């Protein structure tokens, strides 16, 4: 019973520590996702025929300023897909990955399809 109790406590502790340690990383990726979505949609869209590629986040703004801040460890990919419920709308999906490893998140926004 004691071992079981300790196991539960340690597991909970480890999970909380992992959550706290990754919070800044996740928030940073969320901001990059937001920026990638806004930049892409403000730019009038993109070529859906082109295969989506991972773009280093250091390319934001078109300068290499990000390298000093270590933001080049993040990559994002923007792709568009149809929305089956409504053919007039397409879904713009951005996926941000952390170059350090396993963390990634995705965000999307709907956009009226242009004929």
């Amino acid at each position, binding site marked *: 019973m004691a071992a079981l109790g300790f196991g539960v406590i340690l597991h909970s*502790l480890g999970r909380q520590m992992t959550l706290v340690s990754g919070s*800044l990383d996740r928030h940073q990726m969320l901001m990059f*996702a937001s920026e990638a979505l806004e930049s892409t949609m403000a730019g009038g869209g993109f070529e859906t025929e082109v295969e989506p590629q991972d773009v280093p986040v250091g390319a934001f*703004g078109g300068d290499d300023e990000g390298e000093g*801040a270590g933001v080049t460890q993040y990559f994002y990919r923007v792709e568009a897909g149809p929305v089956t419920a409504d053919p007039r709308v397409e879904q713009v999906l951005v996926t941000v990955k952390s170059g350090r490893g396993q963390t990634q998140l995705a965000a999307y926004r709907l956009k009226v399809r242009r004929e």
Partner: protein
Amino acid sequence: MLTLGLVALVYALVSTILVQISRYVADGRKVARERYEFLNTVEILRYQLRSLYYPGATPGLMGARTQTDGQDSLRFLTTNGRTHKGVVEAGYRVQPRTDRAEDDAHEGLAPALFYREFRFRRAEFRTLDPHSEAPWKVLLDNVDVFEISYSAGGETWQREWEAPESPRRIRLRLGRGVNSNDSIVFDVTPGIGAPRW
């Protein structure tokens, strides 16, 4: 005697483990609270800049570098103040704390992010004057990087801004100093005031 020794040993082991766990929990709570404050400040600053108010004839944002590299100052008009409604003048800057008690002197060495906000109902008083008498208050402790770049077209960047038109994009870098590697960089597009991602 042997039984008593074993009981004492187990008790010591359990006590040590519990003490260590409580220390981890306390440290974790402290880090979590600091990160929450850090990210909350970032979010509020972000929304304030998205709600940038530009009167047109006069600048609505003035950003300048200071004598310390990486510790810029920023003053702007926004419709999303922390404490007031309507258009307010908001200001951010990094400076050393001088209001620490003696026993907190080691923490007082780290600079902090200061903030001030005040509203003027009449537009002619909104001058973004750096010498206004509104008091600066500590917003976030232990901040030593507050670096801002501005872009008029989204391609080239400059470190200061006092043009009568709004920058198209603003890039901020905020970082903590002592005993922390917390740092975050983000772009803001002024003019989109809604609090959304």
